[in-house]
């Protein structure tokens, strides 16, 4: 789950990482109130999960309440690359002497934590990596040992952070590492990490991505979940606990297992179709799950055919078949189903479907993944 900047800053604050005084606002009046409380000048920042908001006019400096009102009014509701701004973060503006970069991620190849640190911040790290790769230091950290204050200090020196800022940067690195590990982040990034004229080091931005697998030990994440940017289809899928990702095509996809679901998208594409979604009903899915999956697919107005691709392992064919029969009794599907059923108890499943007396205009069974994909795409394309 990716956090908005303001949520990232609130998350940082939990780990004592210094951030600017400020608050979040969804209306112009609220924004002015927060600006008054933060102390002028303030920066009004659009909260969207997309890069380039500064260029799009989504970040503005305000010297007084009047300007704050003007900017908040312009920015709220603004469309930035297809993302509508629903709230702004208003914070006390910082004087900046220098800008650095710091992040922690998991290096999957090395199977260790990775610190990336650079004395060149404020621009995208990919740009720095391309122009001046030596300006970024990469330090692998064994997750069993963690990051010691001494190692953080050395990293700051190695990254050529100026002497006056080294202590401050090292301190924040240790705090950010704690946020990354104890906070169960996939990514914890500060860009820019700034040095103020007063000598303080401070996080001016926050990019945090949380590991969904760790949600069970973070009840505080619930509030972030409420603001996640999901479309209506994804919202509905979530209420059913389904692994669903909305796409733009016309063939609704239901498969068991992430790999098979991805592969189903690929095959549909190869035979000239487009997938409306990714939907993995997971291992051991029963009739209820299948019925819920069909309900979500049916909700998508673009869908003109449905491809159910099941290879039973834990998932059993007869459960899948029962789910389809039950779903058909509950909802009127707007598009026909093409099903390919193999693996555990597939025979029983196929028999249940055959005995249910479902007309061929509603459900067609095909023996292989490729044939089923071709049939689903042909229907979807109106052939």
């Amino acid at each position: 789950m990716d956090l908005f900047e303001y949520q990232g800053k609130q998350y940082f604050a939990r780990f004592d990482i210094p951030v600017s005084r400020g608050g979040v606002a969804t209306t112009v009046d609220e924004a002015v109130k927060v600006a008054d409380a933060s102390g002028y000048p303030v920066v009004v920042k659009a909260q969207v999960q997309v890069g380039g908001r500064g260029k799009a006019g989504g970040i503005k400096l305000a010297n007084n309440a009047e300007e704050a009102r003007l900017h908040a009014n312009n920015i709220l509701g603004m469309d930035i690359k297809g993302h509508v701004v629903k709230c702004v973060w208003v914070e006390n503006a910082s004087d900046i002497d220098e800008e650095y970069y710091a992040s922690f991620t998991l290096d999957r190849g090395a199977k260790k934590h990775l610190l990336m640190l650079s004395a060149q911040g404020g621009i995208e790290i990919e740009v720095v990596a391309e122009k001046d790769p030596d300006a970024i230091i990469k330090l692998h950290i064994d997750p069993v040992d963690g990051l010691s204050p001494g190692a953080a200090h050395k990293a700051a020196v190695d990254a050529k952070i100026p002497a006056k800022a080294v202590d401050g940067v090292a301190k924040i690195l240790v705090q950010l590492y704690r946020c990354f590990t104890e906070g169960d982040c996939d990514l914890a990034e500060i860009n820019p990490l700034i040095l103020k004229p007063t000598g303080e080091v401070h996080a001016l931005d926050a990019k945090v991505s949380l590991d969904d697998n760790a949600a069970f030990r973070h009840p505080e994440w619930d509030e972030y979940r409420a603001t996640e940017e999901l479309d209506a289809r994804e919202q509905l899928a979530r209420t059913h606990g389904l692994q669903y990702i909305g796409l733009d095509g016309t063939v609704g996809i239901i498969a068991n297992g992430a790999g098979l679901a991805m592969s189903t998208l690929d095959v549909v594409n190869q035979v000239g179709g487009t997938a409306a979604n990714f939907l993995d009903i997971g291992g051991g899915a029963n009739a209820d799950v299948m019925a819920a999956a069909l309900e979500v697919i049916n909700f998508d107005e673009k869908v003109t055919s449905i491809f159910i691709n099941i290879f039973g392992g834990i998932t059993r064919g007869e459960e899948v078949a029962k789910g389809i029969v039950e779903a058909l009794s509950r909802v009127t599907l707007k598009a026909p189903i093409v099903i390919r059923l193999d693996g555990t108890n597939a025979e029983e499943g196929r028999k249940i479907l055959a005995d249910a007396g479902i007309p061929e205009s509603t459900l067609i069974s095909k023996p292989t993944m490729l044939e089923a994909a071709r049939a689903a795409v042909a229907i979807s394309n109106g052939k």
Partner: protein
Amino acid sequence: MAIFVNKETKVIVQGLTGGQGKYHGLRNQAYGTQVVGGVTPGKGGTDIAGIPVFNSVAQAVAATGADASFIAVPPKAAPAAILEAAAAGIRFIVCITEGIPAQDEAKVFNTLVRDYPKTRLLGPNCPGIISPGKCNIGITAGEIAELPQAGKKNVGIVSRSGTLTYQALYELKQRGIGVSTCVGIGGDPVPGTNFIDCLREFQNDPETDAIIMIGEIGGSAEEEAAEFIKAHVTKPMSAYIAGVTAPAGKKMGHAGAIVSGGKGTAQGKMDALSAAGVKVGNNPTEAGDLMAEIIAALG
């Protein structure tokens, strides 16, 4: 021969008294796997269908001589279960648990490397391993795996995805091609066993004549495998990579299946494998067809 597990492998099931552990543990036993015990703290002294249950892995190992463990416990308990098995001297651990936090996985992996270098972990979030006719640990339906055939050419399978592992087994069965061992390494960011570990074993396994590899988007494991193949694998290979059409920045079901910053794309992985001499199919069926051609050419 087979890799990692065979007829002699003695398996305990951590979580045998739970729903998943019981269902799959008994299925594994019915397949012919030596399931010698179960472990559930507090339930020592009981049994599941005659399989004795112990309070700890150490007790189970002492009583049964088990050398492998099948872990089917919830994500919260799995990291400790893995380390307990390693500490008790278990040589081969299969963990099917899905949903373990990445931070825990990274810690467990590095602890194993440091403190228990002789223990191999397969998974987490994997379907397990099957050496057809000899041993099946995990959730694979044994009947879809074609037995290896003496005097004929047999194939080793290694895959990141569960259902695509079954699909690969199925594609080979349709063509009557025997399987030496099929390993599902799992779709998480820090798998205990990676492609290279399996490729090395298959290369050294006299029963394996060719190899199918099934990868997916995210990370760089396939690219690293391609480098290894170029340098060390002389047996012919076919491959398939899932996720050609996956949008960037979205986790496609598996925690590890994500294209980020233009890295980890299916196309990049397919190109790397092709350059290493692997025949790459555009879907699982094509990978099966390519393997059939390879087997025919081997004679």
